[in-house]
């Protein structure tokens, strides 16, 4: 592929400065920056919550908090990390990089874009406000049902559940608007010559994510609305006494919840091959196979949801169907792993921070994937289900596979976005500390689960003490390490060595043809791709 690019340095349109600039901006780079900043802040908030949880679990007995407060922390931790840290980070990258990668001047629907972002802070406030209200004697704190809202526990819960329902509505609306924007942008704003099969993989990953969001968010919104009417308006969707069924809620929730896992991961699967290719100085292996695999995973992800509640009881044919369809996901995923490894095979690798994160990501996400394959087995799942084995498994997919992937992306694009190089030594230190303490946190949890420790308990039997102590110490290290990440980002934004336009020796793609940082408006004339 060769690009002919015209970079415009023409004078900017006037835009307001100060706070008003950020409130009213319709510029994709400004909005992307806001998404990423919001995500980083909420990542630290959600992390602080789980530090308190790990402190409570440091020893058997209740030391720091009541069980009610413990239940609130674990549920809000998950909601914050999923909806307010991981999803906005991916959307932030999409805003910043999609137009640059496909040669578009901006996102297709800039005002929608602004609105989509500004729904997030109120949603985050709604989610966490009940904690504060409880201090003033209003209500009994935040949602305490875990992030899954299972009825009838959530029907029984306090005002925290109502706050969380409205927060989910706002977050859902924001995600759907973001998705519409991304689909329209990718379909209509590509530079001339950029056919769909020349689209960067990041755009492909996001395109499928966007369709998944539009397909599943309304189901979640419907489910929590039914919950709301069960709570306050006398309906009985989830109450057997009124002809309803509590398991209906689980079906509706996981019809959204399982694709959600892929919603979080697909954008990462998109840009990781770009990072691997950059630092291996070798083109992406199996581009077409990856595109088809991403599509196949997108389709499969909406037909496997019931494997999240095998122990709720289902007819044998249903158990078998959900077991085998879940196992089938391993096939397209294996194609992706194959392509990622083949991309670095016989390359000429260097190991800057983004590459370290990308390689560590393949290995750790691999552990998440393989344990997922084992979890698909219905009989063994009776033992794994709702134990720490599952907790460890989904942190390998969502922390290693999600957040560490996002970190790879941050280090990869930060010099492009800010125009400065970050501190490489600090970045590498951040990687090694994160990777080691992450494993020390979650490997003991696999064994805790096998030994029989249920998840979501504030206190545990004595036989679980040692592993919990190791896990807690490692978790504190993991948490503190992230301060390095924040420090490195902040100092990179404020200054540092000038980054070149290409930034990395092996970088390849439209965004690397622009200056670092790119001007406020880019590609006013679309580049032509031959």
């Amino acid at each position: 592929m060769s690009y002919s690019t015209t970079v415009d340095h023409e004078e900017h349109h006037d835009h307001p400065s100060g706070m008003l600039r950020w409130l009213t901006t319709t510029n994709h780079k400004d909005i992307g920056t806001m998404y990423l900043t919001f995500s980083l802040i909420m990542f630290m908030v959600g992390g602080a919550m789980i530090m308190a949880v790990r402190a409570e679990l440091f020893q058997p007995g209740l030391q720091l908090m009541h069980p009610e407060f413990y239940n609130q922390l674990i549920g809000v931790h998950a909601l914050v990390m999923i909806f307010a840290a991981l999803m906005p980070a991916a959307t932030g990258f999409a805003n910043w990089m999609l137009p640059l990668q496909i040669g578009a001047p901006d996102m297709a629907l800039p005002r929608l874009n602004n609105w989509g972002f500004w729904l997030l802070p109120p949603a985050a406030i709604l989610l966490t406000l009940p904690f504060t209200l409880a201090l003033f004697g209003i209500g009994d704190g935040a949602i305490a049902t875990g992030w899954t809202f299972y009825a009838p526990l959530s029907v029984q819960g306090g005002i925290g559940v109502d706050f969380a329902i409205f927060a989910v509505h706002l977050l859902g609306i924001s995600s759907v608007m973001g998705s519409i924007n991304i689909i329209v942008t990718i379909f209509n704003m590509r530079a001339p010559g950029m056919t769909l099969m020349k689209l960067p993989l990041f755009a492909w990953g996001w395109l499928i994510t966007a369709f998944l969001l539009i397909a599943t968010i309304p189901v979640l919104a419907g489910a929590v609305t039914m919950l709301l009417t069960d709570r306050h308006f006398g309906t009985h969707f989830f109450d057997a006494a009124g002809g309803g069924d509590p398991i209906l809620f689980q079906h509706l929730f996981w019809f959204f919840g399982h694709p959600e896992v892929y919603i979080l991961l697909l954008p990462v699967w998109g840009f990781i091959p770009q990072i691997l290719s950059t630092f291996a100085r070798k083109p992406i292996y199996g581009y077409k196979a990856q595109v088809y695999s991403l599509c196949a995973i997108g389709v499969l992800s909406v037909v496997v949801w019931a494997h999240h509640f095998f122990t709720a009881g289902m007819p044998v044919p249903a158990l078998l169907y959900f077991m085998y369809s879940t196992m089938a996901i391993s096939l397209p995923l294996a194609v992706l792993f194959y392509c990622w490894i083949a991309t670095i095979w016989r390359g000429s690798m260097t190991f800057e921070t983004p590459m370290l994160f990308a390689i560590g990501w393949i290995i750790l996400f691999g552990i998440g994937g393989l344990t997922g394959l084992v979890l698909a087995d219905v009989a063994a799942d009776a033992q794994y289900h709702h134990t720490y084995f599952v907790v460890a498994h989904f942190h390998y997919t969502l922390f290693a596979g999600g957040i560490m992937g996002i970190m790879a992306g941050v280090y990869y694009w930060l010099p492009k976005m800010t125009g400065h190089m970050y501190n490489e030594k600090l970045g590498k230190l951040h990687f090694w500390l994160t990777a080691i303490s992450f494993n020390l946190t979650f490997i003991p949890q696999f064994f805790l689960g096998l030994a029989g420790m249920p998840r979501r308990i504030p206190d545990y039997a004595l036989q679980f003490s040692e592993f919990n102590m190791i896990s807690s110490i490692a978790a504190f290290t993991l948490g503190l390490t992230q301060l390095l990440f924040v420090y490195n980002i902040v100092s990179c934004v404020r200054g540092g060595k000038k980054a070149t336009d290409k930034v990395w020796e092996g970088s390849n793609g439209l965004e690397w043809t622009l200056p670092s940082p790119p001007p406020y408006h880019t590609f006013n004339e679309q580049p032509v791709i031959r």
Partner: protein
Amino acid sequence: MARLRITRIWQCLLGALLPLTAHADYAWNFPKPVTPMALDTLQVHNKFMIIVMVIFVVVLGIMIYSIVMHRKSRDYQPAGFTGPSTRSQLFWTLVPFAILLYIDFILMGIPAFHSVVAMEDTRTDADMVIKVTGSQWRWQYEYLDGPAKGISFVSNMTTPQEQINNQAAKNPEYLLEVDNPLVLPTDKKVRVLLTSSDVIHNWWIPAFGAARDAIPGFLRETWVKIEEPGTFRGQCKELCGKGHGFMPAVVIAKNEQDFNAWATSKKAELQAAAAGADKEWTKEDLIANGKGIYDKNCAVCHQVGGQGLPPAFPALTGSKIATGPILDKDNKMVKDGHLDRVMNGKGVMPAWKGILNDTEIASVITYERNALGNSVGDMLQPAQVKAMR
């Protein structure tokens, strides 16, 4: 010098770690299986773990080789391939997927099929049926047939609050001990029916390999066939509110003879307790009896001193309901009165009429009205409770 210092550091580190390993009780796998299903689960798990570990090690080995060899610092020149280019390359590309297909649907898929069918077959050759009801935060057991038919009791955790609050040394069976364990015969296939009276719970004994949700308004089922006598401990594993971590399930397995003997004596014990309902009690006896019942069942939410945890769990001290009338002038139960609330529950408050017997309900109500800072002065006879059922 520096070396000496390093040795010292190591000695210190080892010294710090030794006490940890000395009384460490590390478990690396499922507990010892005592039912056919648990054995099957363990074997399936071990087999799958070996398979995925082999996959992991092979792939990691390939990656490490590439990371070591194919690096710029070794002046390795990058290749330019973007996919398989010859027929034989294409063939070798497809081999890993053929292997994975074989692992997924033959090597793992076929044993998994048989396990699922065995796990779900609760009825064939079942020797007896029991019903397990979860409620916040205790288990209730009922024997529906066999020598123990008609026995029904509630099983509460007995770990004292002082141990949980670190004010007393913890028992070895901390959080995994109950007052009335479920007793089952060995070598009998027991069909376990599960339901719940409030939210979803999950009855789980790891050594049995059986875990099934208890869902309000529905029956779910599983089965166990315990192959050796002993005591087996598990916990609720579906988040069910603030007492979720304090809801153990304990099963004692006895051989058939011992089980029958237990059934006979338990029946006699329950009959004696039911007979208590017909005698006239004094207020003092009811209050004394009620304290134990209150502390075990009610103090979790309403607290030992009756101050509650408002707003979710209201105080009983000075409460309108606990100090208001119980029966109206026609001797009918006052709606939303003290007895009505205890027997039928409302919202988060469970309905106790299925859990406590007449004497227990009368005692706990009398206790609540004349202790916890209340001094209404009246009392409720077990016979009056019996009449309201």
